[in-house]
Every structure is written in C-alpha cells, then in structure tokens.
C-alpha cells in the first residue's frame, strides 16, 4: 500500500422510497410503511462512489457501516457490489425513536474501534431529511466536518483536503480542511457506478460483519432519559399563492439578466445571521425561541449522553435540544 493510502469509512442508510399512497398513521404521526420499497440513500451512494474514487487514486481501503434492521443488508450488498472492501452492519430494529442523536452515538462507538483517515456520509437521508448524523458523529469524535460537499480534492501527504460545498443557485464555497475529517456528500458530486457482474458476485460471497446493538429492552441512547427527538404534531404545509415575477420589459437585456441572476423577485423575507459558530448558534436558537418552535424547558445545553460518551455533545448549532 502506498504511503498516502486512505482508510475511508462510509456511513450509509437504507431508506424507503415512497411509491404509492402517502397516508399518515394517526397513531405515530408517521407515514405508513405498507408501500415502502427500500434502497440506498442516493447521497450516501455518492459518498460510497467518492470513497471508491479516492481508493482508486490514492490506494487504501473502504469500509461501509450502517445501522438498521436486517433488511438493511441489501444496501450493504449494493455497496459491496460497487466495490467497497468491507461492510459492517449494526443490527437494530427499526423504530421511530431512532434519531440522528441516537444513531450518531452508536455509529461513533463503532467507528472508534476502527482505523480511518476519513469519514464520509451522505449530506441528508431522503426519508426523514434530518441531515444531522454526519455532523453529530464529527462532534462525538471531535473531528472537523464539512457538509454538502460536491467536490473532494485530497492531499493525503499533507493531511489536508480542499472541498467544494454547494450553496445552491450555482454558488460554491471552497474550503480547506485538515484530515482526518468528516465530509457529508451531496449526490451531485458524482455519478455512482453501476455494479458489474464481478462486483455482484463478490457482494454475494463477502461476509458482512454484524454487530448486535442493544440488548432486549435496552433503551435507545438518549439525553437524561428523554428521547432526543419527539414528534409532537404534523401539519400539512401552508399553501401559499406562488408569485411568478417576470423581469421588467422596459429594462435592457443586460439589466434583465442581472435581475434574474440576482435571484429576481424570489428573495425570501428574513434576516441573515453572520459571525462565528457560537454566534450562529445563538442566533438560530433565538430565532426558534422567538417563533415558538422550541419548548424552552429543553434548551439547556451540556447534558450528558448515555452512549458514545466522549464527554462532548453536539453544540447548539443543530443540536438535539
């Protein structure tokens, strides 16, 4: 193996895709699972593809890790067919109580026992759309994190990476980050490969390491005995009449183009918070409290975690509070 070989761990999730009647179960406030078909989360698949390209360029090893029920094995087999070297399955029953907080603390525990230079995640799972697990793991592991990555340039010799983040509307942010680190990948980053027959055969043969998570009846990782996430109610989105704004015909062509490029009339109301991470977090919390999204009783930071105990909890920025 070359000196700049990279050991990459990719954390993936098997997600349901909704193909039919979207009905909400009144008991749990969640979608009914009858019509679910499962597949690998596409952002995670892009992360797997990125890890394989990293291995092809720098050498090394790719391990995929998932937490999920027995059926999640299919997602791991797909990753193996794509060409990853090893797969680890933390077998846990599906439960609505699994939150990014709980998942990330279990994943962090497993990752601590492994060697790695880089941790990759998908930026968000397309089922619950939380987009927090990667960031939480970075927090538990005390690693830098870059989210929404669309391009990775690794410099393993210098233990650093240059990353492009997608900011939407074509904007990109280029950041540099020391290694090891956590990157959460955007599916726009690449076009994942389609498994070859050889890949499928390897995937059929290879053994998946399974870790049995909790013992029967053991509680999920939580904060002070309270589940980190609880769905209180679910309301359909408010239907707002959509305004379609066209550029002023009297403007010059250049003027109209500038108007469109600047976002046109679609600018959202509201302010923008700037400053360091602490200020950002305070700003967000203040906003949520002001808008009454946050029950004030649960906002105290710094609680301890029952698992993945690194002595740190995710900060308030996008924390479990």
């Amino acid at each position: 193996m070359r000196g700049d070989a990279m050991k990459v761990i990719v954390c993936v999730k098997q997600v349901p895709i909704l193909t039919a009647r979207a009905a909400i179960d009144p008991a749990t406030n969640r979608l009914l699972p009858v019509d679910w078909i499962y597949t690998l989360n596409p952002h995670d698949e892009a992360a797997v593809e990125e890890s394989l390209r990293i291995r092809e360029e720098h050498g090394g090893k790719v391990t995929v890790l998932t937490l999920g029920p027995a059926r999640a094995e299919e997602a791991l087999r797909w990753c193996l067919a794509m060409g990853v070297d090893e797969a680890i399955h933390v077998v846990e029953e599906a439960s609505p109580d699994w939150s990014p907080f709980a998942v990330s603390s279990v994943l962090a525990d497993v990752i601590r026992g492994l060697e790695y230079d880089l941790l990759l995640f998908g930026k968000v799972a397309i089922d619950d759309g939380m987009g927090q697990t990667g960031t939480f793991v970075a927090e538990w592991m005390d690693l830098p994190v870059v989210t929404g990555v669309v391009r990775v340039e690794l410099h393993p010799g210098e233990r650093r990476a240059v990353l492009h983040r997608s900011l939407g509307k074509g904007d990109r942010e280029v950041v540099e980050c020391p290694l090891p680190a956590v990157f959460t990948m955007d599916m726009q980053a690449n076009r994942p490969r389609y498994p070859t027959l050889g890949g499928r055969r390897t995937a059929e043969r290879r053994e998946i390491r399974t870790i049995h998570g909790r013992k029967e009846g053991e509680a999920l990782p939580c904060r002070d005995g309270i589940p980190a996430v609880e769905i209180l109610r679910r309301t359909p989105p408010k239907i707002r009449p959509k305004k379609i704004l066209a550029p002023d015909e009297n403007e010059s062509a250049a003027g109209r183009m500038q108007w469109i490029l600047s976002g046109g009339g679609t600018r959202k109301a509201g302010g923008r918070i700037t400053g360091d991470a602490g200020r950002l977090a305070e700003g967000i919390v203040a906003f949520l409290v002001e808008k009454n999204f946050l029950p004030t009783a649960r906002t105290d930071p710094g609680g301890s975690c029952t698992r993945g105990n690194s002595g740190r909890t995710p900060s308030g920025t996008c924390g479990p509070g």
Partner: protein
Amino acid sequence: MKSVGREILWNLPHPATVAPYLLLGVLLLAFAMGIRARVRFYRRGRPEGENRLDRLRERAGDLFRIGICQRRVLEKTPGGPIHLALYGSFIALFSVTCLVAVEHDLGVKLLDGDFYIAFKLFAETSGIFLVGGVGIALARRCILRPAGASREWGDLLPLLLLGSVTLTGFLVEALRIAVTHPAAAPYSYAANAVAPLFAGVPVPDLLRLHRGVWWGHLLVAFVFLMSIPYGKMAHALASPANIFLRSYRPAGTLQPIPDFDARETIGAGAIEAFSWKQLLDLDACARCGRCEEVCPAHATGKTLSPQKMIRDLRSESGSREANRLGGGAGEGEEPEIEGLGVRTADVWACTTCGHCVTSCPMMVEHVEKVVDMRRHLVLGKSDFPPELEQMFRKLEVCSDPWGFGPARRTEWAAGLDLKEVGRKGSVDFVYWVGCAGAYEERCRNVAVSLARILKKSGIRFGILGPRELCCGDFARRTGNEYLFRRLAKKNIAVLEEYGVGKIVTPCPHCYNSLRNEYPALGGRFEVLHHSELILDLMESGGIRPRNALEKTISYHDPCYLGRANGIFDPPRRVLSKIPGVRLAEARRSRENSFCCGAGGGCLWLPEQGSRINERRSSELMDLEPDIVATACPHCMYMLEDGMVSAKGRGRIPESLDLAEIVLRSM
C-alpha cells in the same frame, strides 16, 4: 459414326503432365492450412449455450434445402438468381474438371461418343452461365450499386478470379479448335464461335499462345481454389456448416446461459468471448447485404449495419493483437468496443427486431452477438447510456421499468373487481398484464379492455396483482442478464406457488420471455397471447362481436409476436371476424414487418438519425386506414406518437390494440 473425343493435354509438353500435380499439392496444402486456421479460430470461442447437433434429420434437410438448393438465397431477386448462376455453374464446371481428371489419371475412357457431346454442351453452357453471372454481378456492384452491395476488393476479387478462370478456359478451347478443327467443335458452341478469330494466325504462334493461356487458366483456377478458406469465399465452406448447425429456437429467443450463476464475467468484450458458433457465423457471411436492407436502424440513418458489424468483427478477429491492445477511442473517433472494432453506438442502436436474422440466407445470428456485446458493456465494463441505468435501477428497486412499484400495479384495475390469484386451481387463466398495461397511461386502456373482454367471456381468470413483476425482457435485451434472472426467478417462484398452468398476456415481450426464455430457468407454463385467446373465444362463441365497425384497419405485426413467434394469423382472423372491418395489408407485413422502434430496450434509449416509429407510421398511413391496429402495447404507443409526429399528413388514424377494437364491437 466416327468416334468423337479429345486428347487430354493436347499440345502440352511433358512438364504440363507433372506440374499440375505439384501445384495441386501446393493447393491442397494451402487449402488445408487455411481450413486449419479457420477451425483454430472457431475453437478460440467459448462453448455454445445450446445443442447444435440434435435433430439430425431436420438439420440434414435444412442443409439440403437452404444450403444446397439455396432456398433462402433465391428468395430475393436479382441477388438470388445471380448467385444461383455462379454457384450452379461453378459446381458444374468443377465436376467437369474432375471428370477429365478421372479419365486422365485413372485411364478410364469416359469422354467418348454421345456422352462426350453431352459433356461438351453441358460444360459450354455452364461456362456461359458463369461468365454471364460474373458479368451481371460485377455490373450490379460497380454500375448499379444497390445499397448494401459493397465494391471492396474482398467482394470483387472472387468474381474477377472466377471470370478469368472461365474466360481463359474458353480461350484455350477456342485455340485448340482453331488448330485442330475437331469433329466435335460445333458442340463447343461458344469456343467454336470465337475460334474463327484466330484464322489468319500462323499455327506455331497459336500453339505457343495456347500453351501460355493454358498455364494462365491453370494458375488462376488454383489461386481461386486456394483463396477459398481465406477471404470472402470462405462462405462456400462455412455457410453449409452454419446452416447445418443452425438454431431451432424461436427467432426472438436468446440463448440460455446455463452456467450463469457460476460466472464472474459475461458478454463479449473480446473475440474469444463469442461462442464458436458465433465465430463460424463471421465466415458464413457472404456480405449479400440483405440484413442491412431490412435493418430498421440502418434504414433510419443510424450507423448500425448488421452486415458491417459481422465484417468488422471478422476483420478485427484477423489480428490477434487488436484483441488484446485495441484501445478506446482516439480523438475524433467514435468509441468502439475494445478489440472488436464495433462502435458502441451501433451496439445500442439495435432494436433486436430479428429481421436481419430471419432474412439471412446463411442463418447468421446477429442479435445474439449484439446482446453479447451489450452484456459486456453493462455487466463487464459498466459503461452504458445513463438512460438505461435509470431503467435498471427502477427495475431493481421497484421491479418495473417505470419505477412505480408494486403498490401501484393494480391501479389500472380500479373498479373492475378483478380476482387476484390465490390458492391453487381457482382460475383457468392468469391474466399477465405486463408493466406497460399496468403503469403506462395509454396502455392501461388495453389492460382494461382485455379484462372486460375476459369478464364478458365468462372464463375464470385472475391477476397476480402486486406479485407480478417485470418479465425482464428489457433487462435481458439491453445486456443486463443479472437483472433478468432475478426478475424471472421471482416470477417463476410466484407462478409456481400459485400452481398456475395457463397464462394469457397482451404483451408480446412478456409472451416471448414467459414462453421461450423462462423454461431455461425452470419455469414451464402454457402461455397464450391475447390474440390467440380472443380468437379461441370468438370461435367457441364465448365472445361475439355484434356491433359493426365500418373501418379500414391496417394491422402492424409486432416483431416479438410475428417474426419471433410466428403469430401472424390470429390477430388478422380476430379483426376479420368483426363485422364491417376492412383489412388493409401494409407493404411490409408478416415476416417482413418493420419494427416500431421500441424493442431491445430502445424504448429507453435516445435515438440518432430519424425516428424508426415515424418511418413505420408513415408507411402505415400511406394505406389511409381509419385504425392502425397492433397487438403489442409498446408498438401501440410508438405508432401513436409516430403518426402524430410524422408531419404533413391529413387525418391521423387511431392507434389501437386488438383488445380495444374487439371490445368496441362487443
């Protein structure tokens, strides 16, 4: 009567009695080496997926009819008769030469008296046919230049050699007559007509000239014979073998791959990855161009030509290095499959309509090769059009190519109160809807129409509901054998679990897979196409078309129903049983039907050149029908779209499935 005969090797000094035998030795050696090289080449191929030596009587019969009697060659004019002239007269003259050799070498006096006269007339006439055939063939290739007939040296050289052999033969004869004035001269009527030209020439000059031309004749003839295993003429040996070893599977069926589950690689990315029979095919091709003439991709401006593909494969196979090293595309070049010399765009342009296969007089199997190359691109190199990848992923996750998923598979049947097949023996027929009927908006009406007809007929039938998955036809024909087998095995398991014996389906692609390709995976079912079942029901009185339908209907034969499975008549008979219907037969119909453009997964692929469905739609619209009928959901919407987009037309006919038309009349 004075004995007529001739002195063999007249005017030829001693070397001429020995040298031909030496040359013959060289010829036989070169011939044998050529054959050995070709056999070695075939042996580089992988084993065959089917038994090519069963049904020996049938094979011998086909060898006689198709090979020796040239039945399929003769199906086309003028190529057929021209070839017959060349082939027949060559064999005749070759036998004549052998007869002379027998007389001379074995010392048996054969060429004597009346027999000699008959022999003369026969040889003379054969010679004229051969020269005439060569002349017409050359004129056709070089002057008339019909599409598909190439003017490459490889094609012209055998003709030129054959022509030279015969002309020098006539000349030798004429010179002999000019000197000796034999009694039998009038029977050599062609040579005798030429002989007077040499009247004024002194005899010693004639003798010298005769000797010279004789040697020329001998050499050209030997060169021609020697060249047989090496060039295009290899077809003279390979095509009889190829016809004998032909496949007897239904035309639309791909070979089973019995050892698939044990295989790590699949598909043809190198010449060795084709089976030995596929390699024999390359030599059997005589470049007659019939496949190209009927190819829907070639007709609509794609670069694919089945003939060219075979030729490219053969010429690439000539150089071993190319198979190993042949790199990807250079700058400005179209990407090719490494080492095969076939453009990837061509591999994806094939609709697997099978017309090339059924029109080939040498029984070459083009589609099998195309699919083998697709398998290499999909499952070997994972390098294929992204549109297909979308389809594969949907098939894999949702089990249908549109990606709706099992939960929506019965949406089309809402309100019809259909029975879902449950325990054993509860139904006579399983109604296999197919993904098009279940999901595609336009085709849902076909599914509903057939369901209504079946309900009215009173037969006991049921649907599989969400447990019916895609039959895998698209996956298989786009090279994804893995996915095909996964789907097929699941389907077989479900059908077996329910103990289903009979299946009826409105989709010829499902029909072909279930009937012809599932048996290799252990699923044996009695499958009927809906046109067959509707005809049965009409004949037994189960359904009665009452309402007159005063319409002109033009029926389009779906490739996978007609050419692939020989179902030409049931749909036509169903239509003709509807009162008032007038049938207008398309110019290209039945075995010669022209593809709609959807088959072989091309439905999912972008199309270069002009559109196949528009071409077919215009042809059908030329008949000015009220309705274009078909019996395949994919053909139906391809033609519907094609008739709308084929511009500059007045009234656009309706595109309807057979079931929809029958229901209207009930």
